[in-house]
């Protein structure tokens, strides 16, 4: 079951904040966040696991509400380099495949 991401697209000015959401209709084991710039490969940002463990880059923050099966990615004081498409991917079980959402396109204006 594909996770649903919102919003589909965001335009910000440099320095502004953004929140990208990801929700699933199924109980999740983990949520993965990746960023993909145009014409490039997805780059790992963060994993959030059931039970509260997180692993990722220091400058990225995210939350995982296990009861609601929702995750949010917080981008604060956005920089031009944050532009790209953000994908969340969800796992139902520990050894399950990652199913990615359709992505949220983020465009940062100078």
């Amino acid at each position: 079951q594909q996770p649903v991401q919102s919003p589909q697209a965001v335009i910000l000015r440099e320095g502004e904040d953004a929140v990208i959401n990801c929700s699933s209709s199924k109980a999740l084991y983990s949520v993965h966040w990746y960023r993909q710039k145009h014409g490039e490969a997805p780059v790992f940002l963060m994993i959030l696991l059931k039970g509260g463990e997180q692993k990722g880059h220091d400058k990225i923050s995210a939350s995982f509400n296990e009861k609601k099966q929702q995750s949010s990615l917080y981008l604060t004081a956005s920089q031009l380099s944050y532009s790209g498409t953000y994908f969340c991917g969800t796992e139902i079980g520990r050894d399950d495949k990652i199913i990615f959402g359709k992505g949220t396109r983020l465009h940062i204006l100078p």
Partner: protein
Amino acid sequence: EPEVTQTPSHQVTQMGQEVILRCVPISNHLYFYWYRQILGQKVEFLVSFYNNEISEKSEIFDDQFSVERPDGSNFTLKIRSTKLEDSAMYFCASSGEFGSEQYFGPGTRLTVT
């Protein structure tokens, strides 16, 4: 910094031909994946591979597809008889543990004419 590499970067083939996409995962990783991304769309899981066998595959990964780790470093995706709808960017990824962060290669753009 270790990285996943893929060759070729772009492959053009005629419908019905066989193609082999090659990947060299990060050397100490044990889990390998292939994904597909049609232009402008989401990243779609194809297959995961561990301990010389397929761990999981999606509905997309039908009998036309196969994966192999022919030696200690390469991981290949073969499409036996390509169709127009196979045109996409194919990404290889690897991870040290199943479910941990995956490192993606730069992708192979496959164009089927």
